[in-house]
Structures are given as C-alpha cells and as structure tokens.
C-alpha cells in the first residue's frame, strides 16, 4: 500500500465509527457532509471526523481506498457503509440502527425514532 493508503487504513481502523467529510462535525462545509454528521450528532454516536479539505492527499486517496467517488464516507468497524444517500436511506429505514446494534455501537434510539417521525 502507498503511504496515504496506509494512513487512511490506520485512521479507518482506529475508531469504531469514522466519517470522512468536508469540514468538521461541528462545522460541516458541504450540505451532504452536514446531513450525515447531523444524523450521527443527533443520534449521539461517538465517532471520529476526518476533514478531507484539510488534507488533499486524503481527499483524493479516500476515493481510491473505498472505490467511491464522493465525500462524505462513513466507516463502521473498518468497513465502508456508504455516502450521504445510503446513510439517509438507512437512517429512515432503521437499517442504520440495526447496523450499529450489530456492531456494538452505542446510539440514542429515541433520537433515531424522532428523525424517522420528522421525515416519515
């Protein structure tokens, strides 16, 4: 693996939940990143955010790493889960809850239900 791929691989595996995004979880700089970070924040998920705008190597490298052309990208237990469309769909269908439960990731179930009620 190249240096950047090694670096990304280490980052992805260093935390249970990792979000590669534009901006930070507290200050997203893109609507799509903002939507995914917003869901995770609201659900109280403990996750690491990686601002790709702060690291050009990671910004291009992450796309090759996952064979996925866009940001944001969510990883759980080292596995790529999806981008904004997929996370949105999984949030509304409840699959995201199941995936977190399966992987032992703590989250606020009531908050997840509230998101679904508001968007149902």
């Amino acid at each position: 693996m190249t240096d950047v791929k090694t670096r990304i691989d280490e980052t992805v595996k260093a935390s249970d939940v990792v979000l590669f995004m534009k901006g930070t979880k507290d200050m997203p700089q893109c609507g799509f990143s903002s939507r995914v970070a917003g869901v995770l924040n609201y659900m109280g998920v403990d996750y690491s955010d990686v601002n790709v705008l702060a690291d050009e190597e990671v910004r291009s490298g992450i796309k090759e790493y996952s064979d996925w052309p866009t940001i944001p990208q969510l990883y759980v237990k080292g596995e790529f889960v999806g981008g904004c469309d997929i996370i949105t769909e999984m949030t509304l269908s409840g699959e995201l809850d199941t995936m977190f439960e399966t992987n032992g990731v703590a989250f606020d179930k009531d908050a997840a239900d509230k998101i679904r009620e508001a968007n149902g």
Partner: protein
Amino acid sequence: MSISNEIEQRLQAAFQPRELVVENESGKHAGHAGDDGSGESHFNVVIRADAFAGLSRVARHRAVHKALGDINTRVHALALDIAE
C-alpha cells in the same frame, strides 16, 4: 448535449430502467459551494431497474457510478435514489 441528457442516455443504456428521472437542481444551489456558473452542477437521479435486484446499496451505487464514468467528476453533486 446537456449533462442531464448524457446521464439519461448512459443510465438507459446500462440498466434499461422501468423508471428514470434526472432532475437538474443546479438552480437551487446557485451561488452556493460547487456552483460553477454552468447551471449544470447539481443533479438528482431516481432510477428503478430490475438490474439492481440482489445488489447491496453500495453495489448499486457503484454500478451507477461506473455507468456514468467521467460524468461523476464533471458534476459537483449527484444524489442517487436507486431501487429495483
């Protein structure tokens, strides 16, 4: 040819969808990040095709990305709603 038409043609050829809607939403994002002034920066695609049966969400998206080829990098944002 507009990018909307290109997206339609490529997806039509790749998946023979039952339903395909390509919306150019660039007007909604005028002046925001990613608006390059072309009026062809933000798109929303809804596609329904038997070809997606049995594929995971990630695999469906990868199949669409592959069919779109260089269009992925020519637009700023492409929202995909994919189902069989």
